[in-house]
């Protein structure tokens, strides 16, 4: 008797394989860096064939960009959800907390988004800044509106925090990211320092 073919849709298989390939690239980036990683390494680690990889992605850069877009999307969704769930005056803290927890939970994805993205390829750098802009918009929506401030405030706060996280992750301290919550929350409130400090 011939065993029945499992009823799995072609899209599911494609999604699964894409996910597998991008996950493998993330692992390899952490271990040896994007620069040193070749498509051949991905093929070996993912236990698939070069043909399969080529079917879904045109180049190493394409795999990397797919991985980046997916990871950033996940992070953004989590942050938005956390912001909405929190009370209005604790939204900044909740959103920041969600980002820090994500960094601690998936260190490989965090490494890719924060460390590799900013110097892998020019296109990944552009994606990185587009992601920063999205977070800046999110922050703008959750800031108290009464305060007048420079238009670039949100972007610079997001950029500053991303840079601090990047160095922590680079130094292998991704798991301790949540400890930064109180200090970084203070930093987010910096533009609202009202009293002249003299």
């Amino acid at each position, binding site marked *: 008797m011939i065993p029945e073919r499992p009823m799995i849709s072609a899209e599911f298989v494609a999604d699964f394989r894409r996910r597998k390939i991008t996950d493998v690239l993330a692992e390899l980036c952490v271990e040896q860096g994007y620069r040193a990683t070749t498509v051949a390494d991905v093929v070996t680690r993912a236990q698939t064939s070069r043909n399969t990889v080529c079917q879904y992605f045109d180049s190493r850069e394409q795999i990397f960009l797919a991985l980046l877009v997916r990871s950033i999307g996940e992070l953004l969704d989590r942050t938005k959800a956390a912001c909405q769930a929190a009370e209005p005056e604790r939204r900044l803290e909740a959103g920041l907390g969600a980002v820090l927890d994500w960094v601690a939970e998936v260190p490989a994805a965090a490494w890719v988004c924060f460390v590799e993205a900013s110097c892998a390829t020019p296109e990944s750098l552009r994606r990185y800044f587009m992601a920063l802009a999205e977070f800046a918009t999110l922050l703008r929506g959750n800031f108290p509106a009464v305060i007048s401030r420079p238009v670039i405030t949100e972007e610079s706060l997001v950029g*500053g925090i991303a840079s601090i996280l990047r160095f922590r992750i680079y130094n292998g301290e991704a798991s301790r990211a949540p400890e930064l919550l109180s200090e970084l929350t203070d930093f987010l409130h910096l533009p609202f320092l009202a009293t002249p400090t003299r």
Partner: protein
Amino acid sequence: VPVDPSHKRHKSLLEYATISNRPPLHGDRKEEAWTGAPRRHRTASRGKDVFAEQSRSAKFARQEPASPLPRGRTDLSREGVADHQRERVIAAIATMLAERGYGELTVERIITGARISRTTFYDLFANKQAAVLFAQETLFQRFIEAIRAACEEQQEWPEKVKAAIATTLDFAEARPAQTQLLAAEFLAGDPAIAARARSSHDRLADLLGEGRRHYPKTAALPPMTEQALISALRSLITRGLVMEEAEQIAGMGSQLVELTLIPYLGSAASPRSARRHDFLSRRRLRAERLHPRLPPGPQRAARLSR
């Protein structure tokens, strides 16, 4: 800590943040455009940095030198030619990094961009890493010198910050690729290059941190404030360069100044509405509720003297 007496009455934050009246920084740029080779050469200046002279006269030459020296005999000394070649290597590295990223930077591409031979490249530098380190070092030296010169012309600390930011933006406008090289962190690249980038970052943060001497109450600021501010400025400028929003960079000046000065001078927002969100004063407000501060007068003097 001694406090600078020139800060007796400080201006409002917004007064500092308007850049319109800044001294002309690059007015002579047009006449003194880069011509490819140092104009005059004296045998006496052998070993001197001919490019330092150049960069003093034209604050920041807009064009980055890419073309080699003309063929045939040159009146440059051996060292002068080597300087010119190094300069081309710096420009080539910067352009290549901006176009293709560190991952794609090879000696092959550098020598093609700089139009020197492989042999010459290895005469000048031990390897690619050495060349990138040299480019970082040289460019940062020039950048920090320009900032220092701009700051020296100013008396008040906030004015110095303003001058430094204006200089940075001029530098970014005139030399986008080199600025991107200076601002890059190279974390996923070579550890030595990343460490070099980190140390220049720290130097800028220390420079900004001098503001704390002028504003003693800034002791309450989180210790990483300066680091975060420098990162923020760096991120904004790089973003402008990467996304090719050059005109936006030029327009950001006053906002960058305002943003940088807020932790030291306080927000320009109306104090009453801002105070509700002022995380540092929260504790003080609570303390005042418990022990209301008396208005100045005999009663207060009596309480204080107790």
